[in-house]
């Protein structure tokens, strides 16, 4: 496991992420134009979705998929409650705790990519349809966060309007992910043959530039945001992933997933959103400070998962599924 951690640490994408953090902390003016950053995230979502769909076209739909999707929804909707209790315990106020909790129920697409990359390197097979599970886990956490925020507080109200629900469901990143998934499913191997150079071969390169950018953003967040974090709250960013992963491992064991798919579900449980959820929270819980969630999820939890978490989840998954 240590060897895996070291190897993971020395992968180009992790190194580019560190380079971004370093440049940001050192106040370099290195930056990625906003239009490029938005394109890279669109590219990653399309590539991940398409590959997932092409995999499903290859393997077909199974009962395991349906069960795993249910497990994903339960995890996404349930974890925010645990996160909220922990964050309140760590001293965060009601609204901020609810907002951050929403981030930790949802998932991070790049962390998903990282675990599949390591599994591929280890030649550990996993189900292509796990991308569909990732997609359904994006949103339930948002509703749990709102439920939590409203409970016993008059101030936060009226957000479950039809408009708001549509905005959440038709969020651009979810449409891109699911749309590309559908295209991959319909066109299958034929589609993959023509799109392989762009969506597959160039993927590690685009991912490195994206992670460089994420590092730059995380570094900015850490630079400006660490003072507003207590040690207890920072500790949450490293403890919560383990709890999420543990619940995911339990579900995976109940469903009887393979070691590879178990590792992925654990990683999904352990990861925190920093693309889809922040926007929803901004709309629904304007009183929450977005810098807190960003610093925790991108500055602390994401590198933790990349370096320590993923090797650990894979080791556990092999025991659980072995």
């Amino acid at each position, binding site marked *: 496991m240590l060897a895996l951690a070291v190897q993971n640490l020395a992968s180009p994408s992790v190194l580019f992420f560190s380079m971004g953090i370093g440049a940001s902390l050192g106040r370099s003016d290195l930056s990625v134009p906003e239009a490029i950053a938005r394109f890279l995230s669109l590219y990653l979502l399309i590539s991940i979705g398409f590959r997932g769909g092409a995999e499903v076209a290859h393997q077909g739909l199974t009962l395991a998929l349906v069960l795993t999707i249910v497990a994903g929804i339960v995890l996404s909707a349930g974890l925010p409650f645990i996160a909220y209790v922990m964050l309140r315990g760590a001293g965060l106020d009601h609204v901020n705790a609810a907002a951050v909790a929403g981030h930790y129920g949802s998932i991070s697409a790049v962390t998903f990519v990282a675990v599949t990359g390591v599994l591929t390197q280890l030649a550990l097979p996993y189900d292509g349809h796990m991308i569909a599970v990732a997609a359904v886990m994006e949103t339930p956490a948002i509703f749990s966060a709102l439920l939590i925020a409203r409970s016993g507080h008059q101030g936060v109200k009226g957000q479950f309007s039809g408009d708001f629900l549509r905005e959440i469901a038709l969020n651009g990143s979810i449409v891109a992910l699911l749309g590309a998934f559908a295209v991959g499913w319909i066109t299958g191997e034929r589609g993959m043959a023509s799109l392989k150079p762009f969506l597959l071969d160039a993927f590690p390169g685009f991912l490195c530039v994206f992670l460089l950018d994420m590092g730059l953003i995380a570094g900015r967040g850490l630079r400006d945001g660490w003072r507003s974090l207590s040690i207890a709250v920072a500790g949450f960013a490293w403890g919560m992933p383990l709890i999420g992963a543990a619940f995911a491992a339990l579900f995976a064991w109940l469903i009887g997933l393979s070691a590879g798919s178990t590792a992925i579900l654990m990683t999904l449980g352990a990861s925190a959103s920093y693309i889809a959820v922040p926007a929803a929270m901004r709309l629904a819980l*304007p009183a929450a400070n977005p810098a807190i969630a960003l610093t925790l999820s991108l500055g602390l939890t994401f590198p933790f998962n990349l370096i320590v978490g993923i090797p650990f989840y894979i080791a556990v998954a092999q025991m659980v599924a072995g």
Partner: protein
Amino acid sequence: MQLFARKRIEILIERALLKRLADELDRIGEIPYSVAPLAGGRGRAGRWEADGQVGKAAGMFVLWCIVDAARTDDLLKVLFAIVARQVGLISVSDVQVCGQT
């Protein structure tokens, strides 16, 4: 050149709220407006930059409308209701427009 007195209302607004604000301006009578992207700034919540941002939560815009002075008060009430709870600064100034608008 004939000039007519108007008010220019300017709002600094987050990306996440922009659509809501635009829909509201539509609803209360198809108010014309223009939007330009910001590259960064600083406020009570500290310094920020647009570069590198990916999510819909990041980014701000400046939206302005040039309207009849008579409409200003109503409009400000509507705008203020939307941005009051959130980041956002509303300012009003005097302009003159050219021609028959």
